[in-house]
């Protein structure tokens, strides 16, 4: 994988693209933020660039994820990504949840994420995979 240099030439951005309304909305009013009492799996990790910490908690049922919640004092992009991700896996089969990639998240965020912030998107995904890794040991 090569480093994305695309923007480095012009360095031009438009404020409009910086934070999409999706990010804005999800950051201000996240729908899946919160504690999940007695989760079947949970995982947390840290963004090495900023020290932001995100935790994802899941309950299982019907061969899939019954409920998903996240916690974390993180930036708008990371919060929005975590919130959308929790929504995407909530009530889904494990096999579907496992297939979610960065590009899926990026398209749902409806914003160009600059390379310096891409970790803010991948962190929640990484945390989800960590939690899903505990499936084997639980079921």
């Amino acid at each position: 994988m090569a480093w994305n240099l695309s923007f480095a030439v012009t360095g031009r951005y438009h404020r409009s693209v910086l934070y999409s309304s999706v990010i804005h909305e999800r950051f201000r009013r996240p729908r899946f933020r919160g504690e999940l009492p007695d989760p079947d799996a949970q995982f947390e990790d840290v963004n090495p660039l900023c020290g932001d910490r995100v935790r994802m908690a899941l309950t299982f049922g019907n061969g899939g994820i019954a409920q998903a919640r996240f916690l974390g004092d993180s930036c708008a992009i990371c919060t929005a990504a975590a919130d959308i991700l929790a929504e995407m896996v909530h009530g889904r089969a494990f096999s579907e949840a496992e297939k979610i990639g960065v590009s899926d998240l990026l398209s749902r965020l409806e914003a160009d994420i600059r390379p310096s912030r891409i970790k803010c998107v991948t962190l929640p995904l990484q945390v989800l995979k960590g939690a899903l890794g505990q499936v084997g040991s639980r079921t």
Partner: protein
Amino acid sequence: MSLALQTRPDFPILERRVNGRPLIYLDSAASSQKPRQVIEAVKLYYERSHANVHRSIHTLGEEATALLETARDSVKEFIGAEHREEIVFTRGTTDAINLVAQAVGRAFAPGDEVIVTEMEHHSNLIPWQILARDRSVKLKAVPIVAEGFLDLDAFDRLFTERTRLVALTHVSNVLGTINPVGKIVARCRRAGSLVLVDGAQAVPHLSVNVARLAPDFYVFSGHKMLGPTGIGVLYGRREVLEGLEPAWGGGEMIKEVWLDRAQWNELPWRFEPGTPPIAPAVGLGAAVEYLGKLGMERVLAHEQELTRLCLDRLGALEEVTLYGPRNPEIKGAVVAFNVKGWHPHDGAALLDQDGIAVRAGHHCAMPLMRKLGIVGTLRASFSVFNTPEEIEVLARSVANLKFQL
């Protein structure tokens, strides 16, 4: 003429526009910009005089050597060292601290103690943690109190007979606190402990005189003081360096070598294994000359004025929390702050839209962040070319953040 007016034409990067706005660079504490004089010195070095140093008999090699060693002399003068042997070129502050930790640490016994502070940059913390791990040395930290001052009573209590070294920053890269280094050095000297001062944020801002301050080690980075990346300085008191076994080896640092042993070279080269960062050192020499010509008293006065203005303007905004001392006269050229409702990263990204470059995050001082109970801050920091107008733009942009909530 104001310092900013005088110096701005020297900084080519100030011609840049960011997001259609003129660049307002308020991140010099992370890494400063470079004046034309430094960029040209590096360029000319490569175009005219480059060769490897110290062992060359040919003309280019002699020129390169003279340029490198002249840079060493300039640095020596700039920080008021007594001897050129005391100036060891390193890759940066971090590199210098690792060098000291590994060379000095070799002689430490399990149970020996090293004291740091709660406001250290990771670079002045992790090397000591690694030493603690490898040699069962005990690591203690001086707590901070009030607006961000060292608790000197606690320091006295932490200090024991086993204290072998104290490592502390001269100026905090977050709070801006200027620590009472002279006092602490005297205390350590009396008690027979070594002391290392991290001057990364001090040398670009204050007039530092190591002979007067008299620490055992004083370290700083070229790239934060208008110099190139890839170069830093370890000042070591001659008597201390003379007694020190090197921890790293290679060419240059030896006098004679057999397959199974080697004899070390003289100071300062004993601590400079391998081909040095010649061009970066030459550039640092030019940076030091540039600052010397401006005069560090003028630099200090200018940056204090900007700091005062920034504290005033941001302090007047209800949604802003400031960190560190409020008096610019006991503070480096940094202002750390947070804006209610905004994670620092988002704040920085939004300010960037206005062409303003500030730092956001933990500033490599996670333990300090934890102590302050926050994940991070925004931080504006100043250099010779910054203007009061730029601070006003910053304050307006910060004030506007609330309308974007």
